[in-house]
């Protein structure tokens, strides 16, 4: 890499892959979010998200994996425009949306980009029945008009997410539903506006293992049938592989590696990705696992030192790692990593 600080090469700009000739639906460039903390006399900042760039190809599922506190949810909330980023660009369909609509997100953006939250027990208002949750987006975005049309559309949506009998479910209150059913309602609400992009923030992590696969298959079906692009955020690398066309790995607010999911799992490049994969329990390996090389905890995000955030835990740490964050290096078709081990 010749330029020292900027990463211009998002995977789709690589130019090698002809399938991705169509522009990505969403391009995220150098997204950074810092939260000020502390009182009047001490000002510190939590660097929740630092210089994150990736793109969301049309009709694909891009998974983002990382442990708690790595900035995954912050990224989703920034893309959902629930809060403004400190710096960086969100390019949606070729438009820099943060520059064009700097305050509140426009209704058009809300109509295209939807979000499903992690906690299905918190994302539905306990005082409203399921019907209300689905009617509101229909009315706001004028997707249906008139009592009968709204009613039919609500029933359609419940059918799509597999909540039958629809009449019964429409009348229920959130507390009468199980976690999986609530998450399906959350998906139905997001679908009501006929979105192009869906940000799914750990949509299955609060669900029983037995019903996770149902929600994952729902995502797969929506991608295939409705052509919706998904940003699938998870801490579970197995589900990322199951559903993600591409997987990006985040660590301490930085995106450190990205590749097609199979490639990432077969040939992990970044030491952190290797650590993450070694932590996945393997039923065939018995109780003795291969020796983990990295130890320690995720570093504090409050005023972090310069350099690679993984330097403190990395088995291959070099002097330069503590000085400056490495730039993007391409280690294969569509496979990039930010690590000095792979420089030229």
């Amino acid at each position: 890499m010749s330029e020292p600080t900027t990463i211009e090469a998002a995977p789709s700009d690589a130019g090698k892959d002809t399938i991705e000739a169509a522009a990505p639906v969403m391009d995220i460039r150098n997204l950074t979010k810092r939260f000020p903390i502390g009182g009047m006399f001490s000002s510190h900042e939590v660097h929740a998200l630092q210089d994150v760039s990736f793109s969301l190809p049309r009709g694909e599922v891009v998974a983002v994996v990382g442990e708690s506190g790595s900035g995954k949810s912050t990224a989703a909330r920034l893309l959902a425009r629930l809060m403004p980023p400190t710096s960086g660009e969100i390019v949606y369909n070729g438009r820099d949306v943060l520059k064009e609509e700097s305050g509140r997100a426009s209704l058009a953006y809300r109509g295209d980009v939807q979000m499903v939250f992690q906690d299905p027990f918190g994302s539905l208002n306990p005082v409203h029945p399921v019907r209300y949750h689905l009617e509101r987006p229909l009315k706001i975005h004028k997707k249906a008009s008139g009592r009968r049309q709204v009613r039919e559309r609500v029933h359609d949506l419940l059918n799509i997410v597999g909540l039958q009998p629809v009449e019964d479910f429409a009348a229920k209150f959130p507390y009468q539903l199980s976690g999986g059913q609530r998450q399906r309602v959350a998906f139905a609400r997001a679908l009501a506006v006929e979105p192009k992009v869906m940000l799914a923030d750990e949509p299955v992590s609060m669900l029983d293992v037995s019903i996770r696969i149902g929600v994952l298959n729902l995502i797969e079906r929506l991608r295939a049938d409705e052509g919706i692009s998904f940003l699938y955020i998870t801490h579970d690398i197995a589900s990322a592989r199951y559903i993600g066309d591409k997987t990006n790995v985040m660590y301490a607010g930085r995106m450190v590696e990205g590749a097609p999911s199979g490639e990432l799992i077969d040939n992990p490049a970044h030491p952190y990705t290797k650590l993450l994969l070694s932590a996945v329990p393997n039923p065939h390996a018995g109780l003795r696992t291969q020796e983990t090389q990295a130890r320690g905890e995720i570093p504090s995000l409050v005023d972090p030192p310069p350099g690679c955030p993984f330097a403190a835990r990395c088995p291959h740490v070099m002097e330069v790692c503590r000085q400056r964050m490495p730039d993007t290096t391409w280690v294969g078709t569509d496979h990039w990593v930010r690590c000095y081990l792979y420089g030229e």
Partner: protein
Amino acid sequence: MSATNQTTAAVEVSPVGQATPVPAEAAFTGPRRRSGAWLTQLLGNRKAAFGGLILLAFAAVAIFAPALAPYDPTEFVGRPHRPPSSEFRLGTTGSGQDMLSQLIYGTRISLGAGVIVGVATTVIGALVGLAAGYFRGRVDDFLSLLTNVMLIIPGLPLLVVLAAFLPAGFWTTVMVLIVAGWAWPARVLRSQTLSLREKDFVSSALVSGEGSWRIMLREILPNMMSIVAAGMFGAIIYAIGAQAALEFLGLGNPSAISWGTILYWAGNNAGLLVGAWWTFVPAGLCIALVAFAFALVNYAIDEITNPRLRSQRETNLALRRHRRQLGVSRATPVLRSAGQHRAAGD
């Protein structure tokens, strides 16, 4: 899995073929279960029923005052300071008006002012609190400053100053009480809004494209209705007391007939000195009784919406019902359902 689902009551098999646990109803402690159930619970509560009955009686007296009052309350119908008799059931005032008629007509202004002020302060307080807690930042700074200033200014002196400078009258008193009273509910509801603002259902509504006021009024406000309702009854009690106090101090309109002015004239005409207890005891009792009734309803709402108090009450009820079976043992009581009793051969 969250704690809510650990108390699963049943397993529901959806047509998709998934067996999903259905959370037990008791696990949910939201402010409102079903729109009708809330009212049924309120009516079933003994405190609420008793308080409501008293309030209904007072409201009926206020509405049907002309039919109930034996005399015109402003007319001088007898000699001053007559004790209660068959002619004047509650005696006469220091200037010879019928006390009972005054008391009956006074209900209108006292109750009316109390309810108007209580509702108005709650509405203003809720709007200010919601806006401050929802918008945060500059809006919050400004509204919080305003609220804090109103809270720091001592209430009664402010009332006295305002009432003294404005022309006396029913609406002046009401306005003064609203100005002095909205800050407390605003403060309480602001902090509630701040915490509810962070819930995912608010974020979800934002992502759906809901407008700010719609989110405040339809998403956040219904989740704190119990506090709003309880606060409103508190505000009504405060307003009835403060209105009577202002009028007793002579800062209201002394020619209007209310419980406050009855007390004012009783003081002016030396009712206490001449021992004419009937000129001030009934009005004082009425104020106390109405305040008591509102407080009862307030407690009942608290009991119904606060799960901890509700479970306490239900335990007490259950214990009372089963006292005979439990005997006088001091051990932790274990209650069995009716079916189990039969099975155990009780």
